[in-house]
């Protein structure tokens, strides 16, 4: 007789994710939980506590040097950090996806060669330095770009997106080329399937895994970079809380006794980055077993994350 699994408790997803995936999902859930709790907590700018109160019942994460509640600040900061990262990586992917597919598809076309060349060449400048220069040069003043007023946060998102475009384009392009060179594509062309249909129905869905992995890695780099740039004063301007700003405030005031000030926002930041990296690792392992090859040279994986 077959042993029957208890009804209503399907645990097969545990095996699919593996311990790394579960840990990653849990860390991201923790990050989001802090964000939600902080949002519900109220105004991150309100001066409603005794300065430098250690964590306790009235202030679970303690207060900062001005008496602002650190749970509210950390939560709002986590939301801002996540928003900046998701939007910038999203923008970069939206640009890179068509660019990469088209240059991979029409790779002998002169325009495609020029774009590919440009992408390779732009990558010669270390990306983090490029972003620091971009933001450093455009700092302090709000600019009108195409009639839209660009605030410091807007410039941060735009600079990060610009820095990610070449990398993402390259990933999409090599994945497209690898996909197009597989035998089933030749077979379908012989069968008379139209190229447009082939691209939309077969190639595009098969690109997804490789692109998802790189999007995850880009996200973790973006969260790191947002914090770092805010730390340097090039990101979201204070007093608005971001995780980077909170760490910077703690760092510049050198409060040795206030251990919670830098520690807790930083732990939230680490939970977010580690969680995304773990999921990316799991996804990479999944893919490497499949047919879709991970594009050559793709591992700019951990790039500026150090």
């Amino acid at each position, binding site marked *: 007789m077959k042993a029957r699994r208890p009804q209503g408790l399907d645990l097969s997803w545990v095996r699919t994710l593996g311990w790394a995936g579960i840990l990653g999902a849990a860390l991201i859930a923790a990050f989001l939980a802090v964000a939600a709790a902080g949002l519900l907590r109220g105004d991150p700018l309100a001066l409603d506590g005794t300065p430098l109160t250690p964590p306790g019942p009235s202030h679970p994460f303690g207060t900062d040097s001005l008496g602002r509640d650190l749970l509210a600040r950390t939560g709002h900061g986590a939301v801002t950090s996540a928003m900046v990262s998701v939007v910038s990586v999203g923008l970069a992917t939206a640009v890179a996806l068509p660019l990469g597919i088209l240059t991979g598809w029409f790779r002998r076309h002169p325009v495609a060669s020029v774009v590919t060349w440009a992408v390779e060449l732009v990558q010669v400048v270390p990306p983090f330095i490029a972003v620091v220069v971009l933001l450093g040069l455009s700092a302090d003043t709000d600019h009108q770009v195409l009639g839209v007023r660009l605030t410091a946060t807007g410039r941060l998102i735009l600079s990060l997106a610009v820095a990610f475009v070449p990398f993402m384009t390259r990933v999409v392009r090599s994945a497209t080329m690898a996909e197009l060179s597989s035998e089933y594509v030749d077979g379908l062309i012989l069968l008379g399937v139209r190229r447009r249909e082939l691209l939309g129905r077969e190639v595009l869905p098969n690109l997804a895994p490789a692109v998802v992995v790189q999007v995850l890695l880009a996200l973790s780099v973006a969260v790191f970079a947002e914090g770092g740039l805010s730390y340097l004063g090039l990101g979201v301007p204070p007093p608005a809380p971001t995780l*980077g700003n909170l760490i910077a405030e703690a760092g510049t005031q050198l409060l040795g006794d206030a251990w919670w000030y830098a520690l807790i926002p930083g732990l939230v930041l680490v939970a977010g980055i580690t969680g995304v990296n773990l999921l990316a690792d799991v996804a990479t392992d999944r893919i490497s077993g499949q047919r879709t090859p991970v594009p*050559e040279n793709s591992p700019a994986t951990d790039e500026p994350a150090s």
Partner: protein
Amino acid sequence: MTRWLIVRAAAFVLSVVVGLSGLFLMLHTLPGSDTAGLAPTVAANPEARAAARRAQGLDRPLVDQYLDHVRGLLRGDLGVSNSDGSPAADAVATAAPVSIQLGVMAATLGLLPGLAAGVVAARHVHRPGDGTIRLTALVAVSVPSYWLAVLLLVQVGNRWPGLLPQPGGFVEFSEDPGATVQSLMLPAVVLAVGTFGVVARTTRSALIEVLAGDDVLFARAMGMTERQVLTRVALRNAAPAAVTVVGLVVAGLLAGTVLVENVFQVPGLGQLLVSSFSRHDYPVAMAAATVTAVAYLGLNLVVDVALALVDPRHRVHAARANGGST
């Protein structure tokens, strides 16, 4: 080999030209960057602004300015600080050795443990040892250097202030090597954490791939011990991954030093870059960025050539990968 070297060197020169032109274009085309350095009264008055631009030669055609810029670079002239009129090259020359020292210390501290951890993990794939190392390395690449730096600064610095880099009183290596090493220890440790993670992860995945290959199978069949297989066959075959590792480590250290130098107030290139931007001293900031970018490209070139000398296959591989960006 000669032909490969020429192509590779040409790719290097091309990338340097592109990188420097990119920086030049950013400086001169981004809105606001040319007026932000002026006093508010000057910036608000169109005539005074035009006069200031004329004085700095900013009203000439962009092409002329660019050619001037290139001519200056070829002579080693990186421009003049617009806050005190001193040559930007001097500021860079004082700051660069500090950053190099910091980078070398961090690489030394992170490289060997990273390699060792990667090798151990690869030999125990999917066993508990591998899992522990994987998780440790992943956390190491995920922990932001600036956060770790702040924690150390606050906790260690309060208890043992002697370990902190002394602001303004940085000791030259030639004067007192011991004091320099001591004052750079904390920043170097912070940067080494990320380096360790990157090296361990890359080594592990490269080695796993190699260990599954036919060469290793054959070597084992011929009766080599595991140690011989590892040192004579596997590690040698995994060497091409070193290019990737060095690229990642250098890029990571470049980003890391900018941040960590600013946390610890180490007077290196990264701090020069950020502090000149905040003073609107664009010539100095651009000089720092220029030197950093060239150093990054140069290091990649050196590793590429070294590997090609050791391993002929790398030449073919690198030629296919389009030289410029390995």
